């Protein structure tokens, strides 16, 4: 057994790419092109920050108790828009629905302005 393993280790066959024509081929230009475009990769499909900001602002503007003209990316829900804590939670639930997320309670308690919401959603890996 040990002899067989030693023999196999000595018999190393160089690996070469063999094209269907049976000839040994060099890595072609086409292969290197396909190497740079990754069709099945999901690494780059994060939302861009402007996209997130637009959607967050549209959700906040369509909230019934909010005056759309006052909504800016820096607005604070309770002090600037005159909402209360229950409205704050309701806006967060609307954002959860829009981005198909589920925000845990600890993080949700800290989000009380548009800026924090945009930041949190942008950094969340599952936002879509």
């Amino acid at each position, binding site marked *: 057994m040990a002899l067989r393993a030693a023999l196999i280790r000595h018999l190393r066959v160089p690996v070469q790419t063999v094209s269907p024509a049976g000839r040994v081929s060099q890595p072609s230009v086409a292969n290197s092109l396909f190497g740079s475009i990754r069709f099945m990769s999901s690494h780059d499909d994060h939302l861009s920050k402007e996209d997130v900001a637009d959607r967050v602002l549209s959700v906040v503007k369509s909230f019934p108790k909010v005056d759309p003209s006052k909504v800016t990316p820096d607005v604070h829900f309770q002090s600037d828009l005159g909402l209360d804590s*229950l409205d704050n939670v309701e806006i967060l639930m*609307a954002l959860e*629905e829009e981005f198909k997320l*589920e925000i845990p309670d600890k993080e*949700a308690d800290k989000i009380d302005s548009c800026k924090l919401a945009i930041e949190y959603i942008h950094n969340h890996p599952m936002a879509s």
Partner: protein
Amino acid sequence: MGERAAAASLKFVTVQANSASLAEARARVFEFFKTTCRSIPTVMEIYNLQDVVNESQLRSAVSSEIRRHAHITNPKVIDMLLQKGTEELHNIVQHSKQRHHIIGQYVVGQRGLVHDLGTKDEGTSDFLKNFYKSNYF
């Protein structure tokens, strides 16, 4: 059920709410509100409400129901109200109610009782309208 609703429905299996302080009761209220909002897509699918309401209107309906009792400060009363709310939510999500219940109580109900929208009751006094709603006004 959607994943969010399935995860949220596990919260129905709860211990009896027994809040030590107003802050704890307040936290429970927000927790209940979040569970309810996360079950809204399921409710819309069960009762086919897609053409009647959208989800933000149902969220507003839920929050106004909660806001009706916003002035209460006794944690035991808040716990009792939460228990009634959880029971109601449970009934709705388990399809123990029917579509006309949901529409009458949470969709149309926000604009005033359904029978008040008819012409027959428009002339009745405010005293009677309050009396129909509850004993204490």
